[in-house]
């Protein structure tokens, strides 16, 4: 009985020392997972996920506090990418947070209505709005992420979200829907013998 206890206590004590030593000797800082997760988020910074931007959400995911399906701008592809990275199962987008938007939007300020209050400017998380107090503001189209955060603060409701018009250089082939009969409508030839 005594030998048993003694043997175990000594063994465990030694192991404890070993691990304690290892913990001190091999200490590391930082968490690379957060960066990896953040890199996959769309950086719209819209807060729809319920966090104060993409990075906080990334932190929550990395620490296992949030599901991977809460980012509407990232959409399905984003979820799949996250699932891949983290070895989790892809989930459908959480209904709570909203719906994935197929069409990209950008903010446009109706310039003649703008009173130069700078409220939108303060709201924009990526500094995509140019302007100074009492002067007309404009959105830098290429830098707007379409987060819509500037819309509610505007006191004169002069900010509109408009869809990005498709053009030739941004046109994408649609995903085949596996049924070939759709869209095979005959072309309109103007003359038939």
């Amino acid at each position, binding site marked *: 009985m005594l030998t048993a206890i003694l043997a175990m206590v000594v063994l465990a004590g030694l192991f404890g020392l070993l691990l304690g030593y290892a913990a001190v000797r091999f200490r590391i800082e930082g968490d690379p997972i957060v960066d990896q997760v*953040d890199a996959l*988020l*769309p*950086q*719209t*910074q819209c807060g729809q996920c319920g966090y104060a*931007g*993409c990075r906080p959400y990334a932190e929550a995911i990395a620490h296992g506090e949030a599901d991977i399906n809460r980012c509407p701008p990232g959409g*399905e*592809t984003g979820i*799949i990418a996250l699932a*891949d990275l983290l070895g989790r199962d892809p989930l459908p987008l959480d209904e709570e947070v909203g719906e994935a938007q197929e069409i990209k939007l950008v903010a446009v300020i109706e310039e003649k209505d703008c009173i130069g209050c700078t409220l939108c400017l303060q709201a924009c*998380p*990526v*500094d*995509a709005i140019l302007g100074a107090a009492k002067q007309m503001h404009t959105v830098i189209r290429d*830098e707007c*992420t379409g987060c819509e955060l500037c819309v509610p603060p505007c006191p004169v409701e002069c900010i509109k979200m408009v869809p990005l018009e*498709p*053009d*030739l250089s*941004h*046109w*994408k*082939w*649609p*995903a*085949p829907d*596996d*049924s*070939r*009969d759709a869209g*095979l409508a*005959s*072309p*309109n*030839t*103007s*003359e*038939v*013998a």
Partner: protein
Amino acid sequence: MSLPLTKNRHLHRFHGGLHLPDHKLESTLLTILDVGVPPLLTLPLQQHIGHIAEPVVEVGDQVMKGQLIARAEGFVSAPLHAPSSGRIQAIEERPFPHPSGLPTRAILIETDGLDEWGPLPEPLPDFEQTNRDLLLERIRWAGIVGLGGATFPTSVKLSPGKNKKIHTLILNGAECEPYITCDDMLMREQAERIITGLAVIRHILSPNECLIGIEDNKPEAIAAMREALKAAELEATEIIEIPTKYPSGGEKQLIYILTGEEVPSQHIPADIGIVCHNVGTAAAVADAVIDGKPLLSRTLTLGGDALKQAQNVHSPLGASIHWLIEQIGGYKTQAKRLVMGGPMMGVPLRNDDYPIVKGSNCLLALSPEQAPPEEPARPCIRCGECARVCPVELLPQQLYWHTRAKDFDEVQSYDLFDCIECGCCAYVCPSYIPLVQYYRYAKSEIWSQEEEKKKADLARQRHEARQARLARLEHERKARLRKKKEALEKRGAGKADDPKKAAIQAALKRVEARKAAQTATAAPNGDST
């Protein structure tokens, strides 16, 4: 694998490929018809790969045939010339032959029927004595782009760079797609023009040898070309009959057949010392150099059973399909599908109201019997037929599975971007899976994701910069407040004349200062950046 065909040349056989019913006889019964000038010409500004051309005329301007109407913007670009004389009716968005159906900016010319030439540059018949740069400049001016379908500016392809020695020049007369016969007819009827063009290109690149590859289902073309070649007495130039197999006309495939060399993935032929041109391109080069004429027209095949009669036509660029079809007798039946290009790679059109462009080599009006079956796709049974016929030795099936799963990294690891979209895989698939569409979808999806990624990175930077700035502002504000407070207190302390009180005040201040210093170091992020 190689099989001896000509005296001393071994032809190489690429993996896969298809023996398709070629349907070429129908359109080779009649000679090329010159259709003349339509009342309206629609000239999209983007008929080539590269930068869109910039109009140099304005609505209402009168233009002459051959007059520059849009200039090239940047190195990889091509100018446009008026194919006939007339008045600029409009410069506006017009539909153009592209799978998206999206419009692009185009110049519309209302022709006056006179077809009056404007001033042309001086012809250069003795090009062999002419400076190469001058010749290149001429070709560039003429707006010549690859007429084999890719519409890449020819002058760019002909300037491979100082350190790239071109040892082999290849003329592509394979014309492997069914129905298309415009190159065939061109070779039969205008072989000398092609050979002259070849001679010009050869002078520019000075390769060791020139090879002209023609599929063996075009004996007349081969004969005509042989004759013209003999007449021209070009050295180290050979016309090679290659076995008929789709897609032997693909640039990389043809190069492999003729030389056994593989163009490495993501490289261009010039990287291994080879340049390949379509025969029509060569003919256009001859026009530009010998006659000083820009590219104003092209030969194309009008085919398909929905037409009364299939025929090749010589048409000005910008003519509408509808008008062209009328010129050769019109439709026989309602077309089931209209295709710009061949049945394997062509772009489906919504109607016949599109103009022909530099890259249009064929227009098919397919009758219901010729059009694809209207069956829904079934699940892939992994039969492997697609892999057996893929000329690039891809695994089309895997590309398909991973595309369906939207696992684009994996798709790329299966070399999606080596796919030449030849359509062989989809052709043989017993389950009618629109494989090529999956690949196109995957490609454009990957491109757009890359773009979005770039945009996201930019947004992240801006967001982080903003947060840093806000933090700094906040810090500064606090610092200002503190200073103000301190200043106030100092004044208060000055007023207090009780030395004891002052001592206490000073001590308190010291404590406060120390505290402030501590908080400042504890939040180092605050004042960095």
